[in-house]
């Protein structure tokens, strides 16, 4: 197990370096001058040079990358080896700390993704299982039609339609916006109830696509597991159907779901961009779009580092949990 973890960590570092290097190079290749953008069009070339020096963009790209890695490492060799706080630099556009930006944005994205995850599983599990138990029934056909619609409908369209109908026309939920759970902004709704109330529509919008995919997957897994020999044996030995379902079918059928959940949380961070845009949630996805439009490479790279780390950690945890759940899996 220890060797497995060490091996995975080494691969994680390699993956991390590759992703950040590619991100860095891509920004370097874009023919835009962040110093000119930050300084303003009226700036003289001398002023732009000064701003470029302040931002650090007048140095060779490998020097910039080296400084970037040095900032995010938790250790420093300047003045002897010592631990330090990693930091992701400052925005080219508003000079704010990228750590601060991510610290503000990440909880909003996490609220959206984790809440959406709960909802998509609450939808997918019962529908997928019931569809598998009653194949080709009316319930099964309706749910498969719903799956098709859910997969086909773009979250942006869905979100705009939902907020217009349910928020604007019917006044059932807020149209858009985010209410902070712990620290509401001045004169803005906040607290747990308002937080959940403002997220109902975003959760549903975000969850529908994943729910559709998971309904299909759970249905297929359960149907396949129901035909296994050990299930037939369990029934033949007189086990109650509830026990057969719980111990033999679901436990095995849902193992792949665990793996998928770990991977999909990473993907979900990307998918959250659409939902965040529609509902004015200033999460990581929204910040990424803004930073890209403004050629703000520290913010984009900072978010890339954060997301990359999160995905790597999630996948590692999933693998460990999977090995723990399924005794057949040996990490060596």
């Amino acid at each position: 197990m220890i060797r497995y973890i060490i091996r995975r960590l080494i691969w994680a570092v390699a993956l991390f370096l590759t992703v950040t290097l590619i991100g860095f190079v891509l920004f370097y290749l874009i023919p835009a001058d962040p110093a000119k953008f930050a300084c303003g069009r009226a700036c003289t070339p001398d002023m732009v040079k000064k701003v470029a020096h302040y931002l650090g963009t007048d140095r060779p790209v490998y020097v910039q990358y080296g400084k970037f890695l040095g900032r995010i490492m938790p250790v420093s060799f300047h003045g002897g080896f010592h631990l330090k706080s990693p930091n992701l630099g400052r925005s080219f556009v508003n000079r704010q700390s990228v750590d601060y930006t991510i610290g503000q944005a990440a909880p909003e994205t996490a609220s959206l993704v984790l809440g959406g995850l709960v909802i998509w599983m609450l939808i997918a599990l019962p529908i997928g299982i019931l569809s598998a138990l009653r194949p080709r029934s009316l319930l099964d056909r309706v749910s498969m039609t719903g799956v098709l619609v859910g997969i086909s409908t773009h979250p942006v369209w869905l979100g705009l339609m939902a907020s217009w109908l349910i928020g604007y026309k019917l006044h059932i939920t807020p149209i858009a916006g985010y209410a902070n759970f712990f620290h509401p902004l001045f004169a803005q709704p906040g607290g747990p109830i308002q937080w959940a109330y403002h997220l109902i529509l975003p959760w549903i919008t975000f969850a529908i696509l994943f729910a559709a995919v998971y309904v299909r997957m759970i249905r297929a897994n359960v149907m396949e597991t129901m035909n296994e020999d050990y299930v037939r044996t369990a029934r033949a030995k007189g086990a109650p159907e509830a026990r057969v379902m719980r111990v033999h079918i679901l436990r095995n059928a849902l193992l792949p779901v665990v793996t998928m959940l770990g991977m999909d949380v990473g993907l979900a961070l990307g998918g959250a961009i659409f939902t965040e845009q529609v509902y004015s949630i200033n999460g990581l996805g929204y910040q990424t779009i803004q930073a890209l439009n403004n050629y703000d490479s520290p913010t984009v790279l900072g978010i890339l580092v954060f997301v990359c780390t999160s995905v790597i950690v999630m996948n590692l945890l999933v693998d460990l949990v999977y090995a723990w759940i399924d005794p057949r899996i040996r990490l060596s």
Partner: protein
Amino acid sequence: MRKRLWYTAPLSLIGAAALAAALAVTAAGSPTARTAGQTLQLASSATDVDYTDPALSYSVLGAQIEYETCAKLVNYSDAGGKFDNELTPDAATGMPVISKDGKTYTFTIRSGIKFSDGAPLTAQSFVAAMNRDANPSMNSPVSAFMSEVVGWDNVVNKKASKISGVTAKGNKLTIKLTQRDGGLLDKLAMPFFCAIDPAKTPINPQGVNTLPGAGPYYIASRTVGKQLVLKRNPYYKGNRPHRADTIVMTMNTNPQQTFLQISNGTYATDPNGLSNPSAAAQLAKQYGVNKSRFFVHSTPETDYVALNTSRPTFGSVAVRKAVNYAIDRPALLRVRGALAGQRTTEILPESLTGGVYNQHLYPIAGADVSKAKQVSGGKCGNVNLWYATGPVGTPQSGILKYNLQQMGCNVQTKSYVGYAIYTAAGVRGNDMDAMFAGWLQDYADGYDFFHILLDGRTIQASNNNNLAYFNNATVNKRIDQANALTGPARAKAWGNLDIYTMKNFAPWAPIDNRAIRDYVAPRVAGYLYMPAWGAQDLGTLYLK
């Protein structure tokens, strides 16, 4: 007698109450009346303010916020609920005394003005602001405009710690220039020259987010990317409107949702303008224009096609003039949606021309291809047309390509994403023949357009804004001549230079002066447009 008396007393009371109510209603309708306890909720769609630090803020939204929170030497007045597009004294007792050679400006600062923390505003407040602006650690963009101030560049280049040409003695502030600059007062109205309390506004390259203000409001709090809160300055005694007690601005909202939220009254308005431009025609039909909830005004901004005079095709004046006949201005403007602007054939917005404004130098009703061919002699070569991709740039490039082809040009297009086009086009010797560009005034003076965009002496190896690479000795000389003038003569000189340049050299094909379209919530009143900033006044808004 007694019988009459007993019912006259209550009647008198009722009458007095009615009179008081009438007076109160009248007072509430007064542009300067306060609506006590009101919190105005605004939404800034798709953007945050760049900075709230006056040394760094360089955006329209920043200008709107600083206008509410700043006291400047001179400013545009909105007293009485009417916007005055002429500069008037603000923290100064009067307009400055200018020396005969035009190089020394002396202001007398009014006494009794206080910042929102109770600190007094003095001449030193402005000295501190300018020194802070010039401080190299701040990297303030204002230094691009102030090199005529004695000693400014020495501070920027770290040769001095203070600007030697800006001094305060008692309540007198003196600014010395190296040469005449008739646009200095317009520059001093920019947010960069907001008075500051130096004790509370330190040098900080990241900018300060909250600071005491001497205007009707001050910045009470800022959560970057999320919210800005302005509160009424308790020490403000001036006559500028400040209807709401608190203004809360939520940042980075979705544009389409913001439109719905303004419609249902969640937000009062979007200070950046109509967040959903495609709704402009419907709003105009429903509410009329400039009547109740939908407002359209021209801004001091020009959209144009820069014609690279250093390249073979548009090195010919005749061909450049021909382009001005060939382009379809109505079609190009329609791409921006209903009521998006006013077609133009001039460089400057009308407000900067001193009344010398002629929309009809070239056709504005549509393309005149036959006239274009006549002017060019049927000759046009290869044209590399650059544009920035997007909902406006892409269709406009198609229209212009068609227009140029009709004229006989062989057109290739090249697209860029966002700001990258300016970086590429700013490199001297690039292969761009024509590109779409725009310029919004930094301050209300023609020099801001001509010197930055058409003065050939500013052309460098890179980072050029003169995208036409236009360099004409006569025009350069007339720029200097106009810049030495002041008052109405100055504005007229810019207007005349505009006509002269477009008639004789046509380095651009101007398309339009952009309009701002504002939409307010049902209960909102007090809308006031500020031509100087091309945006609405936040201090006059209130809820009915």
